[in-house]
């Protein structure tokens, strides 16, 4: 439980591979976060915001109907989709925004892929009176125009990044360039457990509330720890938050599901741990999708939030040690699960979270085939709600978007 070490390493992963100009700010952030976490006032203020603003604790819902499609497994959902702004992202953002104020900085910047982290950051900036600029790949601003408008309504500036592949990784590059120029007044509010130390550690500690709550809820309300815990992994912030307090529980198996896009064999995927190799990207040594020269390969996923060619270094380490298992889930499998949960439970999941649902379902069916007597409990992190994905689902399922029948008109 002591990882990372003082220099930010999780085994052979992690570290701080950034321009020297940022080293001082990262050291300052490391100290400021340690001090904040040791300060009862900071923790009380964060707890108050989590409860009164975000709506924590989030419940666990037993998905009886969905479970019927998962062999003999009982599937439970940790409902991060019920947070304010619709996803787990707010957990991290509230903590870092409070930290920004503590450090005396007046401005936050952030990268965003699908827009969830951007919306959460813009939300916290509005609440706490911080100036806010969001960097978003130009491709993503077009895929997620609604979230661009939401961020602007909240008072944030949105910059579309037209460099490189024009997606999340390029938004991160641009945010780093902004930060190196403005670091005196600006905090870079990274949205995932990636980037240079202390971010993977800091974001984990702020997302850890998911598993702290879930573990207790399982014991109090469901009689036992789950047999399996499942989460989707892009950068990996919901997954690390969902895994972390279960890591010492050896009976609990941890499964991370990466976006396999159109399949690993096609090369069009975002399955970094499953199909990548060790390298350095965005300030950390981790698993990376890269060519033989070390150039980053563009990732592909139907889910903008998982469409990233790197992954948090702690996940790379958990994979190395075998404590967590990582598998791919294709676009098609995720969209099937998206539809299934929506129809059986009346919950529209984010397509990101649908990857975890698809993985859990596959796991349940596999266990039923191998051991028909087993009655496993699978706890899935439903990291976000799917309102933002309705347009993608429309297109994917070829829905016409017209009413079934028009009534009440005059002939």
């Amino acid at each position, binding site marked *: 439980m002591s990882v990372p070490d003082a220099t930010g390493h999780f085994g052979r992963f992690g570290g701080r*591979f950034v321009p*020297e*100009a940022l080293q*001082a700010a990262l050291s300052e952030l490391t100290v400021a976060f340690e001090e904040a976490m040791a300060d009862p006032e900071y923790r009380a203020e964060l707890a108050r915001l989590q409860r009164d603003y975000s709506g924590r604790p989030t419940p666990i819902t037993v998905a009886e109907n969905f479970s019927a499609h998962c062999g003999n497994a009982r599937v439970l959902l940790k409902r991060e989709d019920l947070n304010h702004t619709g996803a787990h992202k707010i957990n991290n953002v509230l903590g870092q925004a409070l930290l920004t104020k503590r450090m005396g900085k007046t401005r936050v910047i952030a990268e965003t892929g699908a827009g969830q982290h951007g919306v959460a950051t813009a939300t916290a900036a509005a609440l706490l009176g911080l100036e806010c600029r969001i960097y978003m790949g130009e491709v993503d601003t077009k895929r997620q125009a609604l979230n661009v408008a939401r961020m602007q309504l909240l008072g944030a500036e949105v910059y579309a990044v037209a460099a*490189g592949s024009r997606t999340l990784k390029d938004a991160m590059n641009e945010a780093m*360039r902004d930060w190196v*120029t403005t670091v005196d007044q600006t905090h870079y509010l990274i949205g995932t457990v990636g980037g240079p130390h202390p971010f993977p550690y800091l974001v984990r500690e702020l997302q850890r509330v998911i598993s702290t709550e879930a573990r207790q809820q399982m014991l109090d309300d469901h009689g036992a720890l789950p047999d399996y815990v499942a989460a989707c992994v892009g950068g990996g912030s919901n997954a690390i938050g969902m895994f972390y307090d279960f890591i010492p529980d050896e009976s609990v198996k941890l499964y991370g599901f990466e976006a396999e896009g159109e399949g690993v064999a096609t090369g069009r995927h975002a399955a970094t741990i499953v199909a990548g190799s060790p390298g*350095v990207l965005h300030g950390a040594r981790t698993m990376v999708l890269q060519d033989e*020269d070390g*150039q980053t390969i563009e990732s592909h996923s139907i889910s903008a939030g998982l469409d990233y060619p790197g992954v948090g270094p702690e996940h790379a380490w958990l994979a190395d040690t075998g404590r967590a298992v990582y598998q791919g889930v294709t676009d098609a499998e995720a969209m099937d699960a998206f539809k299934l949960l929506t129809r059986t439970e009346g919950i529209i999941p984010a397509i990101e979270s649908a990857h975890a649902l698809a993985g859990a379902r596959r796991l349940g069916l596999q266990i039923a085939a191998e051991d028909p007597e087993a009655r496993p409990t699978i706890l899935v992190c439903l990291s976000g709600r799917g309102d933002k994905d309705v347009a993608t689902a429309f297109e994917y399922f070829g829905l016409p978007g017209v009413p079934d029948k028009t009534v009440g008109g005059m002939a």
Partner: protein
Amino acid sequence: MSQYTDEARLGISGRVVSACLDAGRPALVGYLPVGYPSVADSIEAVTAITEGTDGRGVDLVEIGIPYSDPLMDGLVIQHATAKARARGVRTADAFRAVEAVAATSATPMVMTYWNLIEAYGPDRFARDLAAAGGAGVITPDLPPDDCPEWIEASDAHGLDRVFLIAPSSTDERIALTMRSCRGWVYASSVMGVTGARAATSDAAPVIVSRARSVDQGLPVGIGLGVSTGDQAAEIGAYADLVIVGSALLKCLDSDGADLPGDLRRLRTLAADLAAGVDRARL
């Protein structure tokens, strides 16, 4: 005699700097990426900046290797390196450019984001660079306290290793970085990305004097934002190396359409910069 006499610390490139200082001027360093506008054209360009218009150009050439995620570069370098990558440049092409520069009177070095060396294999990279006649590598995103494999590889193949310091660096960090360098230390004069700036930074003399007060044994280069002979003269009055990048690259902005014209402008700028460092300490 320059103040820098410890040959073990000076390595190959530091000795070049020391010789320039002995001649009463700072060393001039020019950066260009390999592969832009094409590999062959970029090799002509790196050769041109060593010659200027009348045989006097840069003393050291920094050959950049294009990378997919150049997070400390401004638009000029981003755009050129993106085109170079789209045209298929590979890591090994840098060694061809190094060989070409090694055949001139100037000394070649490589500047690269770390992941490209990690993917090539640090020892193999060091071996191939040394074989091509390279003096060493500038690594802008490699922390000097977290790269045992690079220290080992650069030692094994006798290469210089140049790390960066910045206005935000603490004295402890400057000391550690300079201790880890061989050749010289690269001081970024501004908090920001690469690119020419109209005025030189107020922070430039401060970072140089801070570096000197921490460690007198290693030459200090100033980079980021230098674009004219006058700026080179101004900075060269106190820095041991004057580093120019984006301004040189801008000379190639016809993207190969008018290479002879671009090379003429490149030679003219190199000559102007060389004249600038010549008058820096008069």
